């Protein structure tokens, strides 16, 4: 039986999702598609999603790019800075497979799931803004619902 407090928490969390994004060596294509989600046409904030780009107050981390060696330790430390409950989503082909950059001689170390736990991936080079919003909206309630009860 879900308690009153838990119900209140679920309700609040479903309409207040704070997002940070980290670029670990992409071509910029996915970054600007994440930025395009801010525009009034897609309007992230109508779903209660706020892009702050501050890991300390984030719930969702969008990982963009193919994890260059410089980011191996930094990605982990950013992930540790995010308070629980938290979830990471890989945006684009790069954090999934390395896309075109995963060839002999390049300085990349994909996939991102080697470094931090990735809950969902949005493939595409780059994915459309609507797909990014849909991924956040469909994943966040599953992870955040009844978080305290699941933990026990």
């Amino acid at each position, binding site marked *: 039986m879900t308690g009153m407090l838990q119900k209140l928490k679920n309700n609040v969390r479903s309409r207040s999702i704070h997002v940070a994004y*980290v*670029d*670990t*060596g*992409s*071509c*910029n*294509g*996915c*970054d*600007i*598609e994440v*930025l*395009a989600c*801010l*525009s*009034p*046409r897609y309007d992230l904030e109508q779903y209660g999603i706020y892009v*702050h*780009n*501050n*890991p300390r107050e984030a719930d969702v981390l969008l990982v963009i*790019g*193919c994890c*260059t060696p*410089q*980011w191996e330790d*930094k990605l982990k430390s*950013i992930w540790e800075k995010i308070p629980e409950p938290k979830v990471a989503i890989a945006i684009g082909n790069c954090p999934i497979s390395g*896309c*075109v*950059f995963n*060839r*002999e*001689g*390049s*300085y*990349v170390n994909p996939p991102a799931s080697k470094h931090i736990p990735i809950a969902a991936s949005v493939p595409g*080079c*780059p994915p*459309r803004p609507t797909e990014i919003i849909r991924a956040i909206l469909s994943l966040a309630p599953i992870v955040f619902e009844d978080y305290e009860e699941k933990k026990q």
Partner: protein
Amino acid sequence: MKKTVDVAVPIGPVHPCWKEPIRIKCATKGEQVLSAEVELGYMKKGIERIMRGRPWQEVMFLAERVCGICSVVHNMVFIETMEAISGIEPAERAAFLRVIVNELDRMQSHLIANFSYCYTIEHETLAMYLLNEREHVMDLIERITGNRVNTAYMIPGGVRYDLRPEDAAAVQETLDLLEANITRYMGIFEDGPMIALRSRGVGVLTKEDALRAHAVGPTARASGISTDLRSQHPTYRKLGFEPVVRTECDNYARIMVRFGELFQSIGLIRKALAMMPEGPVRGGGICKGGETRYSGEAPRGELTYVVKADRYGRVEEIAIQTPSIMNIDACAHYMLKGALSIADVTATFISSDPCVACTER
């Protein structure tokens, strides 16, 4: 005079204002910035190393993934380099279609640069207006080429798809809408007293310093240097191209140059649509061997490709020089030096429109 550094303030690599990782180390005295150094290397992927030994059909797709914001111009300059090596002339209609798509790409790049600046100085209303206008331009790019970013529209000898008459009508209609809206937003930026406080006289790059730092693109044109490689491109010559130049040298001038170029792009697309002849869009041709150096004007400035290909069209050696590295250097060593407030560092840096992905590749 002995300079005493109070605090060395590091900004980045992850920062709320920046889309890409880069670190600026500012030596400060009180509120004043004495000097600044830029630390790069967070996004080095080694694209040029992957490109070596691959056929042009593969390098073409790698070239546009050097930078996602200005992907069309990377595609265009690489294909024109291969055409220069092999002696291929593009079909006449295709040459005008290239200009149309390149100018649409420049418009969305300038709109996102001005959005970033307005967002950084916390004028969120104007930023959101500009970002919404960008979506109209992205719609046109998607309608003509089939994708929003990384379009791979140009091929040696021409372009992939023809422009249908209904698409041309949609372009005309959207350009009218964009011209009306951007005129209004430029008025807001020009007359805003709060924007002027954050922009006028901040981040000054004098003409001498710009020449010394080899600044390119809108950063150089805002400092009174009339440099634009489009005036040497044969198709742009037919359209009668004149660069936009301002002489204020500050953040305000750099943003206004980009607004000016938006109107210039609208004019160029209209002219190209009117002058475009009927005919095929694929001229054909075979890529041959050779070595050449070719430059084109990207939204951020001069973009150079040096390509050496063997007789089957495989790329043996390639070197890319992107515009942002000169602008980042000019920003760190001349604009930020002696800045009166540490709060202006992010705004000044964004006003030079840095693109870290193409700087490091």
